Structure formats: structure tokens, C-alpha cells
């Protein structure tokens, strides 16, 4: 362990392996933040591998992998390793960009791709043309001409004895620079995620059509999940009212996709804290943004209005927010502690239950063409405040059943002296309100990530040398173009051929040259793949 261990590539690979392993666990084991009910039934042994295995899973934190200390530790190790690896790489990269020069060579290397041709042009002209060609294609060039310079201009050993040449290299800093940018973008993403967690806010609230809406304040949300740094003063205080909720389905049972919803649209009126009310629309994929808060539709349900009267006294009159339950029904509850003893109603709402032979038949279809309310009445102690219960659930442990009834809209029934009415039916929508100031930073991080990834995978380091010599007493200049790529040799082979063709076009070949101008495909000196073999981590000599 220690710094040297952290810097090693093998360590990074191992850490990535552990990350993959933990993610795999999170794919297979249900995660508490996502599906708390499934996790509960795993723990109870009702689902999954049984209670004993679940206890072990719980013990190792497998039900909340991304919130577990082990995951945090791994993240820390990954970033430490990343940092340890990046610091020397960045240093080396800066040095590379500032000082790197393609080396001067004496002869063609063993694994170089090479091609040669003859020309009438003087060697100096060929070198000038090559420099122009390569410079135009943004290669980093170095011209070496021992005769012209005549002196020990070059410090690198042996360079003086090397023949005149143009040396060039390319892809040196773009590949490594892209890789660095890619890895550095993780810090941007991590910072955005961590600060985002602290600054974010998310709240949910159901609103019934044409009913009082709600204001953006801490107390008006049903569920409220603020980040640690999000204070109540950060709320903008606008009001939302739901004017209409439209929903439709493919109603033809024989049509493909029968029963699937086709429309989800809420028309809302927003009153900003300091401004005029305006109307707008929230749709499935089109959230509404108000003062930096995003408003999404999360779920929906029917909102039957129920009135309960005991001994001529109205003890309950409200719009229920019934939630979808199994079998196409919607479930809710009425809790009327104003009566004595308390009245509780278990309510089931079926939107499409036409009359059949022996009473209403429950079709399970979600459209409200034949709405039916089924109530079961309970009396006793509702235990409000004493036990945990949601709005739509009735804790019947302190209650006694008093029978039930069916109601159509407008109906009124009397069950054991309690009058129950169902005067109207509306719909409600569950809105999610969120504020996520980290989103622009996440976008920046993602853009950097992709911008770095593409050159990291596509740029390739390569070197090319052009040597033109005219042996004493000869008319012709012999030009050799050779080089090698450290990655993507097959791509380089193409590029090399292209460079040769272009150079020939610039300097010209004598008409009687034996080389067929159409057949200038470079002859490869050796298996080009061999060059790529050990290139990936090889340090380029300077």
C-alpha cells in the first residue's frame, strides 16, 4: 500500500473491478432508496432468498450499496488513485507539450513502415516541401541539416552524424491530453454531485382539480427532502392551482397497446410570489420551471368528493386523493374524528364498473365511464396520531365493522345511521417540485468527459521522417518516407501512403521513373501491428 501502490495502473483496474462488483450487487439486490417495499418484504422473507440471507445482506449493506460506508471508501480510494496517477501524468504532459521534439534518426527502424521514390528536385527542396506538407497538417516538425548548420547545434547525442532529414510527430499531446481531460472531468462530476446533494430540494404534493392548490413553502409538501444546505428561506413562495387534468388511453381492447395511456396533461395556474397569475401546462416530458423550481407530474388518481353526516351533523366533506391499487381500483380512506364514536371509511373507487347481471362488474379499465364507489364503514377509535398511517390507509385495529355500500355519483346511502354521499368526481395530480442547481455543472462535466474521451481513444501518436539524399555524381534524389505509430497502426499505414502520394505530387517524379505512379502504396517494412504491441504505456523517448 501507499503512494506507489496507488499510482499503479493495476490498482486502478482492481478498484474499477470492485466498483463493478458493488454495482452488480446493486443490480440484483433491491435497493432501499428505490423500492423500500420490496426491501421490506425481502427482510420479512416474503420475497427474495429468505429472511436469513436478507439479514446477511443487510449486515453487509447490500440493500443500500450506494449509501454504504464501503462504497464511500471505494469512491475515496478511486479518487486517491486517480489523483496519484494524474499528478505525474499532468506534469509529464506539460513538459511534453512545451519541450518535446521529434528525434533525429540515422536510418529506417526495424518495424517502420517505409516507402521511397526518386525525384529530380534537390534534397533541400524535398525537405522544404516535406516540412510544408507536414506543417500544414499540424505535425510538430524538426528540420535537421548538419551541412547547412555545420556545427554541434543539436545537443542530442549522435544527431550530428545523422543525415539531413525532416522529423515530425503528431498526436502526442492530443491523445494524452484527451485522456487527462477525461479523467479530470470526474472531479467536476463528483463535485457537482456532492454539492448538488447538499443544495438540492425535492418535494411532492398532490393537488385536486379546481381545488385549493398549494404554495411553495416547507410545510405544504406531503413529502419533503431538502439537502442539508437548502433552507426554508430558499423557497420561492409561488402558488400552484390545478385547473384541469387530461388523461386518455387506447380504449379499444383489441387495438395494439390497449389500455396504455396516450395523454397526460395538467393545465395549471401559477401565481409567482410577486407577479400576476398565469396559466401553463405540465406534460409527461415537459416539466414547468417556475423561479428555478422544476414541476413534474409524478402520479395521478381520482378524487371523489365524499360527505359523511351523523345525526344531521356534517362530520366530513372533502375530496379524497385515491391512489391506484391492484386490479384497476383506486384506494383511499375517510377519517372523521368529529363524530362520536369516530367514523372511518375504507374507500375503493372503480372508474369503469358498469351494471351487470348480479350488480356492478369491475372491469379494471381506468377511464371513468361508469364510476363506482365502494365503502366499508368502521366505527371506534381511529387512533389518529397514535399510530403511523397514511392519508389513504385506515388503521382498523381499534375499529368495528359496520357494513358497506356501493355508490354512483350523486348517490346517498345510509349505513347504520351514518349518511354517506358521493356528490362529484374530480381527478388529482401528484406534482414533484425540485430545485437542482448542480445540473449545469453536471452538463459541463459530461461535456468535458466526452470531449476528452474522443481524442483519448482516437488520436494516435506517430512519427514520420523524410530523408532526401542525392548520392555524389547522381542526377536523381532518393527520397525515403518512413515512420511508425504507437497506436492504431492500420490507420497510420493509410496516412503514410497519403503523405507519400502528396509529397510526390509536390516535388514531382521524373517521367521515366520506374515506379508506377499508380502503385505507390507503401511497402510495409514489418508487421505494422508489432509497433502497436507494446506502445500503449511506452514512454516516448525525447
Amino acid at each position, binding site marked *: 500500500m501507499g503512494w506507489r501502490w496507488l499510482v499503479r495502473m493495476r490498482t486502478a483496474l482492481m478498484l474499477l473491478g470492485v466498483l*463493478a462488483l458493488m454495482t452488480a450487487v446493486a443490480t440484483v439486490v433491491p435497493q432501499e432508496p428505490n423500492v423500500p417495499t420490496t426491501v421490506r418484504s425481502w427482510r420479512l422473507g416474503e420475497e427474495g432468498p429468505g429472511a436469513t440471507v436478507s439479514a446477511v445482506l443487510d449486515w453487509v449493506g447490500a440493500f443500500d450499496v450506494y449509501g454504504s460506508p464501503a462504497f464511500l471508501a471505494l469512491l475515496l480510494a478511486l479518487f486517491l488513485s486517480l489523483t496519484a496517477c494524474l499528478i505525474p501524468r499532468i506534469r509529464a504532459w506539460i513538459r511534453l507539450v512545451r519541450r518535446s521534439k521529434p528525434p533525429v534518426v540515422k536510418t529506417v527502424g526495424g518495424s517502420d513502415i517505409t516507402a521511397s521514390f526518386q525525384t529530380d528536385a534537390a534534397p533541400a527542396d524535398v525537405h522544404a516541401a516535406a516540412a510544408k506538407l507536414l506543417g500544414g497538417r499540424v505535425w510538430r516538425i524538426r528540420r535537421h541539416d548538419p551541412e547547412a548548420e555545420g556545427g554541434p547545434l543539436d545537443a542530442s547525442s549522435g544527431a550530428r552524424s545523422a543525415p539531413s532529414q525532416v522529423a515530425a510527430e503528431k498526436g502526442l499531446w492530443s491523445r494524452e491530453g484527451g485522456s487527462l481531460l477525461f479523467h479530470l472531468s470526474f472531479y467536476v462530476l463528483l463535485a457537482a454531485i456532492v454539492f448538488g446533494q447538499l443544495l438540492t430540494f425535492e418535494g411532492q404534493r398532490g393537488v385536486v382539480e379546481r381545488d385549493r392548490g398549494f404554495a411553495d413553502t416547507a410545510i405544504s409538501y406531503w413529502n419533503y427532502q431538502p439537502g442539508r444546505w437548502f433552507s426554508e428561506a430558499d423557497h420561492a413562495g409561488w402558488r400552484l392551482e390545478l385547473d384541469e387534468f387530461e388523461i386518455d388511453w387506447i380504449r379499444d381492447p383489441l387495438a395494439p397497446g390497449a389500455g396504455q395511456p*396516450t395523454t397526460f396533461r395538467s393545465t395549471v395556474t401559477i401565481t409567482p410570489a410577486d407577479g400576476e397569475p398565469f396559466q401553463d401546462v405540465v406534460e409527461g416530458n415537459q416539466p414547468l420551471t417556475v423561479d428555478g423550481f422544476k414541476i413534474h407530474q409524478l402520479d395521478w388518481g381520482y378524487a371523489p368528493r365524499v360527505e359523511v353526516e351523523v345525526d344531521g351533523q356534517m362530520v366530513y366533506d372533502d375530496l379524497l386523493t385515491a391512489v391506484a391499487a391492484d386490479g384497476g381500483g383506486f384506494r383511499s380512506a375517510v377519517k372523521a374524528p368529529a363524530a362520536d364514536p369516530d367514523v372511518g371509511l375504507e374507500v375503493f373507487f372503480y372508474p369503469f364498473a358498469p351494471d351487470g347481471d348480479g350488480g356492478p362488474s369491475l372491469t379494471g379499465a381506468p377511464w371513468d365511464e361508469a364510476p363506482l364507489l365502494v365503502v366499508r364503514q368502521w366505527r371506534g377509535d381511529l387512533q389518529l396520531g397514535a399510530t403511523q398511517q397514511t392519508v389513504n390507509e385506515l388503521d382498523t385495529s381499534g375499529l368495528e365493522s359496520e357494513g358497506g355500500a356501493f355508490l354512483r355519483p350523486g348517490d346517498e346511502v345510509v349505513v347504520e345511521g351514518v349518511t354517506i354521499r358521493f356528490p362529484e368526481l374530480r381527478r388529482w395530480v401528484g406534482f414533484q417540485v425540485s430545485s437542482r442547481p448542480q445540473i449545469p455543472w453536471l452538463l459541463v462535466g459530461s461535456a468535458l468527459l466526452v470531449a476528452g474521451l474522443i481524442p483519448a*481513444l482516437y488520436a494516435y501518436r506517430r512519427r514520420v521522417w523524410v530523408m532526401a539524399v542525392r548520392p555524389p555524381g547522381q542526377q536523381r534524389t532518393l527520397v525515403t518516407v518512413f515512420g511508425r505509430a504507437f497506436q492504431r497502426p492500420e490507420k497510420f499505414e493509410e496516412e503514410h501512403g497519403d503523405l507519400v502520394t502528396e509529397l510526390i505530387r509536390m516535388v514531382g517524379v521524373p517521367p521515366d521513373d520506374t515506379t508506377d505512379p499508380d502503385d505507390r502504396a507503401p511497402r510495409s517494412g514489418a508487421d505494422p501491428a508489432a509497433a502497436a504491441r507494446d506502445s500503449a504505456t511506452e514512454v516516448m523517448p525525447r
Partner: protein
Amino acid sequence: MTPTELADLSRVLYSPVTLSLYLAAAFVYLYALTTTVGRREERERGMRARKVGLVLAVAGIGTHIAHEIVRGLAQERLPLGNMFEVTSLMALVGVLTGFIYMQVIRKRPELNGFVLLGGALVLASALLMYSEPGPLMPILDTWWRTFHVSLLVAAMGIFAAGFVFNSLYLLRDTGELAVARERERQLEGSTVGAASAGDLDVADETSGIGGRTIDRLDATVDDGRDHDAEYRAALRAGVSVPRLVIGTFLGTSLVSWVFVYSAATLAEGLTRFLTINLVMVAAALIARWFVPLLPPTATLDGIAHRTIAFAFVMWTVGTIAGAMWAEQSWGRFWGWDPKETGAFLTWVAYAGYLHARATKGVKGRGAAWIGVWSFVVLMGTYLIANYVIVGLHSYAGL
């Protein structure tokens, strides 16, 4: 035409038409590959066969594209809405990219047979998830979704091609390793061991990855034996059949168990499970037979790497697009939903492959194995997230 007629037409175009064209093209190309070591007239026959394969492959790609269009017309939406459509498009992109890459960019048409064989397998497996054309849930239907899903599906297809080449690389490498080991053993026993060991190093220059030889050192010895044929047989024999069969069966099982889990009856599930596994075993055995005819390991490794690098970029962009879509549709950009977790896991796995290729001591076989495992992760999470765990992302009409 009515939607029903269009739907029928799209089904026929898919299977049998495209499926049989892919299979026929694959086998013609594979036949052409067998002629590369034959006599001259045989090689000429092979070149002609390649032309036939080209026509069959292009026709198959054409009918496959026609299938996608007709199916799109039948349901008036892009065919990207359920498992069948996604798997079908995965096959199309894999075949199209692999084919163009081999034919035009790498100029190695002799390897098209493997691309098409892999494509035919994916195409056939999509039939196990067949569903009739139908509309899409409105919540799924946005531009972001189209962008996100098409990128990821295209990447899946290209990853599949990468898997094929990684597997071929491993097979070839196993064969070469076995030959090298055998030769070493022989040299140790011989009196000219030291001298021959020197030859080995020279030979290494022209060989594939790593410090061993694949050259036919004694091919020049004129003893009347066909050393090329012996070498080829040795390469093939180097890949042990029982290990290949058992390994392929077990490896495939890591993914195909999902079909047992998701089928209506146990018998049906087991049938599907066995069918998939045995088809994969058969494909592995075919590939083994072709080991001596494959290009050098460095080439196969390079092709696999370029393919996977390309798909990795697409996967990255596609996953980011998915987070953007989720932010718009659900108001949260990332929620560790099973599909999101699966996409992340696949990304990490392939990042592991890219790192491994740059790591001393791991690159080569080690990296290729990570690449193979990454594809198991890809297919596993894809099937598990759709069939076993139902999250927010579950498709309509599974």
C-alpha cells in the same frame, strides 16, 4: 396496406428472409475463408464465393432495414419500443458496422463470416422476445428517448461485434500458445536446444503478441511433409474441445438463465435455455475449426479494440443522454434504477477493458477476457433489468 398487412410483411422480412440471408452469407464467407490455404483454383473459387457472400450480406442488410421501416410504418413510430425491437436493431447495427468496418475500412472481408454469424445469432435470439407492433407509452415517447435508446442500442450491436473478435482472438491465441508450448517442450528434449532457442527470438519479430513464436521454424526442412497443414492442425488441436464446450455452455448460462426465469412454463424456459446454450456451443466449435485460418492475434486484438472503443464512446454519450431524458421526464437525472445501474456497470466493465489494454501484464489475453466478461455483463444487465426486475424503465409490451 393496412397496419396488419404491414405487420405481417415486417415479420416475414425478419424471419425467414433476413435470418436466412445472414446465415447463408455467413456460411458462404466461412467457406471462402477455408479456401485461403488451398491451391490456386480453390482460392479462385473462394474469391468468387466472397462475391456471392457480399451479395447475400448486402441483401440481408437490405431486407433487415426494410423490416425496420415496414414495422415502423405498421405502428407509426420508431421501432425502438420493446425488447424485440431493441434486439433486432442491435443485430442490424452490429452487422452493418462490422460489415462496413471489415469490408471498407480494414479491408478484411474474409472475416465477414463471423460478423454475419454473430448477427444471425442476435437476430434469432430476438425472436424469443417477439412482440406484435404497437404504440408506445406517451411517457416514453420523446426526442431524448429516441436519441438515448438508439445510441445505446447501436453501441450494444457494436459491442457484440467486439465480443466476436475478442473471442476469436482468445481462440487463436490459445492455439498459438499451445503450439509454442509444444515446440518448447520438443526443443528442451533435443540436442540443438540452445541454437533453436535463438531462432525463436528471431521468429518472434513476425509473430503476434507477446514473447513467443508462431513461425513455422522448420517449414524449410524438406522432408516431404506438409508442414503448413501440420501447423494448422496443431493450432486447431491447441484449443481443447471439452474445455471450449463446457466453458461456452457455462458462460452462456450466466445470461440465458433469465429465459428460464421469465418463461411461462418451466419446460418452455428450459427449452429456450438449452437452445441458446447449444447454439452458442455450436458457434464456438465452428469458430474453433477456423482458428488456423484466422489472421494474426495482433490484428484480431486491434479490431476488437477499435470496435469496443467506438462503442464505448457511443455508450458514454447515450448514457448521458439518458440522464438528460430522466431529468426531463421524471425530474431526477439519476436514480440507480436497475437499468441505470446496468448501464453504469457495463460502462465500468468496458472502461476496465480499456484500462487493461494499457496495463502491463494484463494486456493481451487478460484484456480480452475482461472484454468478453464485459459483454456478459452487458447482455446480463439488459435481460435482467427487463425480465427480472421491473423498474421505471420497463418497456411497453415486453
